[in-house]
């Protein structure tokens, strides 16, 4: 059984409006990822958090965004090495969790009773959606390549307007891709992905409950490997020690 959160009056009354807002947000964040500005608001954590804030449940955004951000921290999103579409995935999974009024999703603060297995199920869904989105991003870039070739006509007639139009056309396509895809993803997660969760059984739930604990470790491990192990340890241990020390001081 999925435990449901008591939805706020706002979510009940304006679910479709919020869904449209989610599409708008995802479109803008997809642009931010590569096409425009690149302020990193399209990273999984801020993307999920902004979606959570839009739906009035920032704790869900943090819960989805934090482990995703951690596991993707070693990704190098440059040029050909670009992999996945974590923006729409993070936005869609957060919005779907809010729209379905799921309870037990949030960062642990001692007061909240968490459904860790459901949390893991959402993260697994986000990972899969990101990989699916990767194909679409590739296709989009192939289309940009074709339009770039179309722009060669300007090398003959000297028309600058065509080049500007083609470039801005790419901006529009990226926005529309993000907006449309995120709305489709929200509905897919809510109608197909979440209903499967109660049927996974105890063993499946036990495995999923471990995933949110594994992902931050995976990300940190990948970062250590990327930076070179021998150079890393002292700084890493210093950071951990500092955090544990301040945690102890704060706790006492």
């Amino acid at each position, binding site marked *: 059984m999925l435990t449901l959160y008591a939805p706020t009056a706002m979510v009940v009354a304006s679910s479709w409006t919020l869904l449209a807002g989610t599409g708008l947000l995802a479109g803008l964040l997809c642009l931010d990822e*590569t*096409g*425009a*500005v*690149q*302020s*990193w608001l399209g*990273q999984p954590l*801020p993307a999920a958090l902004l979606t959570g804030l839009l739906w009035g449940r*920032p704790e869900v955004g*943090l819960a989805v965004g934090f482990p995703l*951000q951690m596991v*993707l*921290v070693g990704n190098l*999103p*440059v*040029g050909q090495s670009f*992999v996945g579409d974590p923006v729409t995935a993070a936005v869609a999974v957060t919005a779907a969790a809010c729209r379905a009024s799921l309870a037990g999703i949030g960062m642990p603060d*001692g007061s909240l009773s968490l459904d860790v297995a459901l949390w893991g199920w959402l993260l697994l869904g986000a990972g899969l959606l990101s990989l699916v989105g*990767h194909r679409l991003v590739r296709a989009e870039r192939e289309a*940009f390549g074709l339009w*770039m070739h179309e*722009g060669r006509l*300007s*090398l003959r*007639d*000297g028309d*600058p307007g065509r*080049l*500007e139009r*083609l*470039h*801005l056309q790419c*901006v529009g396509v990226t926005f529309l891709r993000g907006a449309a895809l995120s709305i489709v993803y929200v509905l897919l997660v809510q109608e197909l992905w979440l209903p499967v969760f109660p049927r996974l059984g105890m*063993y499946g739930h*036990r*495995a999923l409950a471990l995933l949110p604990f*594994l992902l*931050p*470790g*995976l990300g*940190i*491990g*990948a*970062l*250590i*490997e*990327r*930076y070179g*192990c021998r150079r*890393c340890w002292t*700084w*890493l241990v*210093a*950071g*951990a020690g*500092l*955090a*544990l020390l301040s*945690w102890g001081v704060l706790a006492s």
Partner: protein
Amino acid sequence: MDMLLRLRLFLRLILLQASWNSQRMQNLGLLYCLLAWLRRQGADADFRRRFFRRYYGFFNTNPYLAGFLVGGLARLETEGSEGADIPRQLLATYRDSLGRAFASLGDQLFWLGLRPALTLVACLLALMGKPMAVVGVFAVFMLFQLGLRWWSLGYGFGSGMDILGLLDHPFWHKAIWFIKRLALVAAGAVAGVFLGKFQGLGGTGGLSVFGVGIGLGMGMPLVLRRRLPGEVMLLIGMVVCGVLGFAISLTGS
């Protein structure tokens, strides 16, 4: 450079990567930026055709540092249009060599340094339950990088060919060194807070799993001889969780 041209270049620079494609990468984006300069010239069709041919080839650089290059190219084009002898090959060499150098610096400084550092600091704030501070971190970065782009345009235009000296500056390597250490300290702090915060959620072997995650994240690239993207690591992680879940159910802990 007058303020209006700088503003137009800046606004277009923000969209440098919008038409990124796998064949010539940012070529259309660079041309889109430089069209702001070209439109000011009121050039005839023949000049425009030659201009487009100069910049339609492969081009790729770091978007945050592209302002140096775009500003420099605008300066060289201005000098050329005012009668200075600027060979076409020189412009191509300037674009390609600077583009590559800034791409390499940008990869180290932004993608491998600042991005992990900043996102880990944001993760730390997320763990501490401060959502608005998370948004604040990225808002500060947005202002910083927009400011850098604005400043670099002016610097590139002011320097022209002399911008090559900027690449020799020890600042870059010091900044990369510092930011990567900052990322590691932040990663350690995230691990520390994570351990402190999640120990209350025992019963699932969560803390041991965190340690397994670190080992797996470090070990997978060594075993597979390639770095896997985070999404694939997540799926492999799910398989590992299945095995661990089974082991935990067997031991009954």
